[in-house]
């Protein structure tokens, strides 16, 4: 609930909802954002983009049928056209007694302070300078850094409002910025790459030195990497890898996947689904989360949901439709990919409750195995329906309780079900990352490695 851009968008939403006819439910989601992106290359500005965008998505539900339309402008005549198109589309949907918009449910909206006025007053030259500094620092970090493919500063100011004919009227506003570098390292004819970033709500949050050090370290530590032998080993996931794995796990715990027969966890509430060290929480009200949000894609207050507790499956996440159809209620988990689609149900900010040990201590405990620094091909190698899991990987050998030589061009494979059961330990190093999941070091036993 904020003033300024938010109230203007609420008024746009009001105008849409006022077009509802008798017997209709109408929802408007209205978005506006301003974005800046600066890329530098060899000290010069390669590109500078500045953009304002906005749009509206309209859902109409009538006689249990749902229709949707969107437009990338907010002109009054376009709003009317969009409502009419959504209404026409609704005539072709099949009636479903569970269709219906969210209604106020009494859950209080958390105050997360996601909007920083400070971002708006940062001079353009300072933004350019951040990207230039990042490039310079990363180049100076190590003699083996031979190039910086991209060094950029990006920020955005976003407003969103959701208004419905069923009494929802919420808005939110947030700022975000980051610097990121993607670098090349070379030694003895071998080339490797690495990336580093720093994320914040305003430029003063950004840590250029850390972004540069991460990028340089990731690229140089893989130089001279070889393929490991195939076999079964214990792996330690770096926090960044764990976060990607958790994001996939989160998608299998969506009420939508369950209802549509696409979740390997359907009918398993109350059962043990993983090691007892595992407690998985989806909490978009945690202000440390990059994806924190005060309200969900249907305008309900977000809330903390415990999905897996000590290895036992406790609940799924729901939007209004999946909650109602499952005989429960929305968990404030309606997710929207902007204004161009209807809300799905999904996790917004998942994390594992951290354990007691640092990554170093975990590695000492593991003794022999592989530290997985990055994975690739997750979108093609993981089937969230069957649970089959196989991805490309890079990392470092763990021998005698310490990290050793670099490894590349191998795959790690298991199933989601088996990996959850094979979790040996969760690290203490919880790290919030620019994705819908937080990272933490994770030790998993008995993973198949395919290499030489």
């Amino acid at each position, binding site marked *: 609930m904020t003033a300024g851009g938010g109230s203007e968008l609420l008024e746009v939403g009001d105008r849409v909802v006022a077009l509802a006819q008798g017997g209709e439910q109408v929802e408007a989601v209205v978005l506006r954002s301003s974005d800046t992106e600066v890329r530098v*290359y060899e000290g*010069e*500005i*390669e*590109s*500078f*983009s*500045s*953009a304002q*965008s906005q749009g509206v998505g309209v859902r109409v539900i009538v006689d249990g049928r*749902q*229709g*949707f339309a*969107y437009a*990338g*402008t907010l002109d009054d005549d376009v709003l009317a056209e969009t409502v009419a*198109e*959504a209404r*026409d*589309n*609704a005539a*072709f*949907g*099949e009636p*479903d007694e569970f269709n219906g918009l969210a209604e106020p449910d009494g859950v209080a909206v958390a105050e997360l302070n996601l909007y920083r006025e400070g971002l708006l007053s940062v001079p353009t030259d300072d933004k350019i300078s951040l990207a230039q500094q990042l490039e310079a620092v990363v180049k100076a970090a190590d003699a083996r850094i031979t*190039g910086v*493919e991209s060094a950029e500063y990006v920020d955005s100011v976003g407003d969103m409002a959701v208004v419905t004919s069923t009494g929802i009227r919420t808005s939110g506003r947030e700022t975000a910025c980051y610097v990121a570098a993607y670098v090349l390292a070379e030694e003895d004819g071998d*080339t*490797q*790459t690495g990336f580093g970033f720093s994320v914040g709500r305003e430029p003063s949050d950004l840590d250029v030195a850390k972004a540069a050090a991460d990028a340089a370290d990731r690229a140089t530590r893989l130089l001279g990497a070889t*393929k490991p032998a*195939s076999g079964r080993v214990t792996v330690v996931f770096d926090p960044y890898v764990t976060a990607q794995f958790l994001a996939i796990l989160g998608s299998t715990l969506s009420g939508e996947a369950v*209802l*549509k*027969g*696409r979740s*390997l966890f359907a009918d398993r509430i109350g059962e043990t689904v993983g090691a007892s060290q595992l407690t998985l929480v989806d909490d978009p009200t945690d202000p440390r989360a990059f994806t924190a949000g005060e309200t969900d894609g249907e305008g309900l207050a977000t809330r903390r949901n415990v999905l897996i507790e000590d290895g036992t499956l406790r609940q799924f996440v729901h939007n209004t439709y999946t909650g109602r159809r499952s005989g429960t209620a929305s968990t404030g988990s309606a997710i929207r990919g902007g204004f*161009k689609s*209807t809300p799905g149900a999904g996790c917004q900010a998942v994390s594992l409750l951290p354990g007691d040990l640092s990554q170093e201590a975990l590695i000492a405990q593991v003794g022999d195995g592989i530290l997985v620094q990055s994975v*690739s*091909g997750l*979108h*093609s*190698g993981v089937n969230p*329906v*069957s*649970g*089959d899991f*196989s991805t*490309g990987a890079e990392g470092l050998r763990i021998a005698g309780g310490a990290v050793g030589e670099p490894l*590349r*061009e*191998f*795959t*790690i*494979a*298991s199933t989601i079900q088996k990996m959850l059961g094979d979790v040996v330990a969760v690290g203490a190093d919880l790290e919030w990352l620019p994705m819908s999941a937080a990272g933490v070091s994770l030790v998993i036993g008995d993973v198949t*490695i*395919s*290499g030489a």
Partner: protein
Amino acid sequence: MQRHAGTISSPLPPGPVEAHVLDEAVIQRTLGAALRTGGEWAEIFVEDKRSSSAVLDDGKVEELTSGRDRGAGIRVVVGETTGFAHTADLSEDGLRTAAEAAAAAARGGSGGTEVVDLTRHTAPRPNDVSVAPEDVAKATKVELLTRADQVARSQGSAITQVMARYGDSRRKILIANSDGLLTGDDQVKTLFSVSCVAFGDTGMQTGRESIGHTIGFELFDQYDVEDLARRAAERALTKLNAKPAPSGTLPVVIGKGGGGVLFHEACGHGLEADLVGKSASAFKGKVGEQVASPLITLVDDGTIAGEWGCFAVDDEGRPAQRNTLIEDGVLTDYMWDFLRARKEGRLSSGNGRRQSYQHLPMVRMTNTVITNGDTEPDDIIAGTDKGVYVAQLGGGQVNTATGDFVFGMTEAYLIEDGKVTDPIREGNLIGNGPEVLTRIDALGNDFAMGSPGMCGKDGQGVPVGDGVPTLRVTALTVGGTAA
């Protein structure tokens, strides 16, 4: 460099599109404003895109979606710097504001008033669309979904879930620049996909089939959605009996059509001039060198009529081209967009593409194909003692700097004693592009295009096609769980 076969993220519908979205005089004045502070070159890209889609899931048509996006992106180039701004406001005031923002972003010098002469028109090739999607009743589109659902479910009680998706889009673009270019295109795409879930003793498995072409609703005169649904269901059912995939390095036979993503990832991205220019490609400096087996001729072809990655002009106004990148294993050229080509004093190869008016163009593939060899595909399998036959690859990803890539197998079988035997579960294949290209020892004569895909690069998705004949890689690492 992620790529996933499949749905267009915002499939579009129809609608009357004005012959010319903007008046020429307005374009001329906008470009003039863009150059007023010393820009060397300016461009305006105008887009009007309508889309529609319908989804049937869980036994019912969930909803129909329609959308419209319209706006302009303005680029100003000064030296090595590009300034860019975009706006949804196509009034002359809105365009001038964007032009001034782009000019400020490019930080030009102190130029005077520039006059742009838009005389060199290029006539766009009319799109061969015989049935515009906007002329087809919504009920007809919905009926396709219902038929697909029924046919898929009738393949067996083990089919527990079906999702069918219809999508169409019409994207009208106009491109004008300070070199005097004024051109445009009208791109119509139609897509249909079916995904099934089968449930058995081994848990759940999935099967998917999709068709997509740069044509109108006549797509369904050429393809039968019932056949598509049957194949998607069979794929899921087959996988219920799948064994764990082997792990380790093995010969891999890639089936016709479904394996083009191998080349998209293994070398296509590495041949994009923007990555080459920043030394982020394993193929930098190798033009004229033997980089692949002599069997391999790789062509990126935006002119293949009706294919998913084709167009009349690219998003910088260059006509689509057929570019041979590797000929008989020798690297002949890279792919180019305007900026990278200008730096080298040559012409763009028609590979400048962008997701929308809100994005800067960059070097992108169109339809990437391996031309036919002369071996019978059956002989390739018969000549493989022990290995894996991949009938359909999923998406993939590549690190262009190192050449390391992965892609998923969505339908694959064991090869034992020269015969295709048991189906295997999903897994990734991993390899290094430059190495794999040299390890192709057999090439079939059965070329086919694969499924429509969306290629992601730098966060921008564009439609791409690919195709291959059956071929064999002598050694690839298969990432399964079986020993």
